[in-house]
């Protein structure tokens, strides 16, 4: 599966990326994680508050950092 983190590089965006990477590693989930920093690309997801989490091209979280348990549930649900 494909996970994208949309964010302009702010501390919150980096924190979300780190969390997602940890969870994916910890549970040995097969996922490609990319950080999308380009503003035009971010806008193409119609996202106005960062960080946002995109799983398989679907925006699942906008403008906040979810708890580990919520993240794991979101990732598992789409796996």
């Amino acid at each position, binding site marked *: 599966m494909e996970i994208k983190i949309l964010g302009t590089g702010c501390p*919150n965006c980096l924190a979300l990326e780190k969390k997602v990477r940890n969870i994916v590693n910890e549970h040995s989930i097969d996922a490609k994680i990319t950080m999308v920093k380009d503003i035009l690309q971010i806008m193409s997801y*119609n996202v*106005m508050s960062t960080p946002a989490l995109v799983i398989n091209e679907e925006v699942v979280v906008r403008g906040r950092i979810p708890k580990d348990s919520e993240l794991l549930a979101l990732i598992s649900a789409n796996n």
Partner: protein
Amino acid sequence: MFDWIQNIADYLVYDVFSLSSKSHLAEALNFFIYDSVKILLLLFVIIFFMGIINSYFPIERVKNYLSRNKLFGLEYLMASLFGTVTPFCSCSSVPLFIGFVSGGIPLGVTFAFLVTSPLVNEVAVGLFLGLFGAKITIIYVISGVLLGTVSGFILQRFKLERYLTSWVKEILKNAEREQEEFIAEHQKFSKRLPVIWHEALTIIKGILPYLLLGIAIGGLMHGYVPEGFFEKYMGKDNWFAVPVSTILAVPMYSNASGILPVVQVLVAKGIPLGTAIAFMMGVVGLSLPEAMLLKKVMTWKLISIFFGTVTICIIISGYLFNLIF
């Protein structure tokens, strides 16, 4: 209402640490404990309730509303009001700006939102309530909303579209007003609550070190700086105090949590409220890092006009406050 916190602070300082009630150290420590507990409590309550409101008015819905409806002049006020319930993170200002502009929302209305959002947000309101009480908080919120409305209205008159960066102008050409109503995903209140709770805790955790440092510095000053100390230099009859403190504040980074507790002590020691509020608005509302981010969508000329207009509005409201109080 907060007597019990004072009792805890008294108990800790005079009984547990057995400090003399006459010493500066005891006074400063007492102030620190009382203020920290009271402010953290109020802050959490405000952040939590603003979180509930925001959960029903996410930014996508706000944009849709402003894009879809013709409001005949009220759009500046509406954008400004929406700005108050939206939590502000300067890193979101660019996506937000593009989102608004591509939805056909006029530049001035977008600015109204951008000005009010950092000025009146959950953290600023919570801190104000804890430090200055309800009356001054209400005045601050109203003036923040008016400041955004007026600045947006003025900026719209300047026809600033020509000063956007070229790729934003491209977006502007294809901008379309949205026709359909935004349908938010339906979620039960009981499902939203834990998320909002967690979010509130995260915000508090993030600002806690700055806040405690601010209160500690405030506490020290409270105990050691004599009453009326600042009146000599920054009193009401000193006409340039307002512009100087505003201009000093603008480049500063928008961390309200560290600065507000210090400003509160300054007010207690004789700095006029209007001067202090102008300073705070400068710190919270405009900052150098924000200007750097906006550089992606605006030319320097536009950023200067934007910052200049808001700065002048802040200075005027500072004078007004000093006149009224």
